[in-house]
């Protein structure tokens, strides 16, 4: 079982990752490059200076390659998380179940955190990184658990707990910058926010669909 879940997860990640990395090349990366032009014009924060001199992939093919590898690894991560969730819930893993799980995962890890922390174009003003990351992860987990309780547990208490978990991160509030200062035009930042949410949705959905389809195929293979 472990062998099967890891094989399906990694293979699904490879397939979904290649497709989404291609999408990124045409959709989000050009906006990031434009954002970096504006970012270079503003004085850097000490926090940002820390990694500036460190190695980074050279623009062009090397940068595209590393971005693609990162997307494939993220897609494999998404596929494995979805497969784990379906197994823990005792769901039969099919393309349809995986699709529904991937939509819920996007609500939890895409839409809910974006309500407090808008997807950032490089150079956007933002609060301290670690605080934002903790709020982001907390919101994604809390929303995921809330959706599961709300949709899967037939008890009024569970539904009430779900509503509390759904609202809590937003009542606590996401860490915000002291002031909003960015040289990038608002239109560019808004376009990027919408584009990056679409890309995240595509990665969840394609990872889910690929994981569901491959799981069914592997199951047939072992039963035959």
């Amino acid at each position, binding site marked *: 079982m472990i062998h099967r879940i890891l094989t399906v*997860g990694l293979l699904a990640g490879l397939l979904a990752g290649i497709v989404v990395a291609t999408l990124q090349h045409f959709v989000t990366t050009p906006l990031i490059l434009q954002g970096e032009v504006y970012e270079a014009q503003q004085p850097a924060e000490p926090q940002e200076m820390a*990694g500036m001199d460190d190695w980074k992939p050279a623009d062009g093919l090397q940068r595209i390659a590393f*971005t693609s590898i990162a997307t494939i690894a*993220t897609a494999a991560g998404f596929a494995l998380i979805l497969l*784990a969730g379906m197994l*823990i819930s005792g769901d039969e893993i099919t393309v349809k179940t995986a699709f529904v799980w991937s939509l819920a995962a996007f609500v939890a890890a*895409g839409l809910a955190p974006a309500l407090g922390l808008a997807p950032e174009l490089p150079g956007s003003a933002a609060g301290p990184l670690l605080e934002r990351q903790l709020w982001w992860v907390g919101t994604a987990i809390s929303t995921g658990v809330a959706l599961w309780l709300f949709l899967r547990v037939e008890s009024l208490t569970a539904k009430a707990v779900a509503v509390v978990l759904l609202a809590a991160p937003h009542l606590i509030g996401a860490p915000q910058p002291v002031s909003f200062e960015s040289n990038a035009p608002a239109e560019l930042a808004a376009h990027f926010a919408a584009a990056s949410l679409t890309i995240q949705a595509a990665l969840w959905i394609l990872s889910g669909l690929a994981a569901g389809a491959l799981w069914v195929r592997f199951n047939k293979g072992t039963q035959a």
Partner: protein
Amino acid sequence: MTAVAIPVVRGKSEALKAAFVALTLGATLVFLTGFSHIDKVHNAAHDTRHAMSFPCH
């Protein structure tokens, strides 16, 4: 009855074990690409971190 029940329980615990391994590896991969504070890893995954709406610098 018992003969049927044991494989079911065994299958269930095996599924949970596999799910736990998958969850750990999946979360580690997402953490590595999206949340690592190691500068080289951040720089390599930079465009994906932004494209996935993960919090970045």
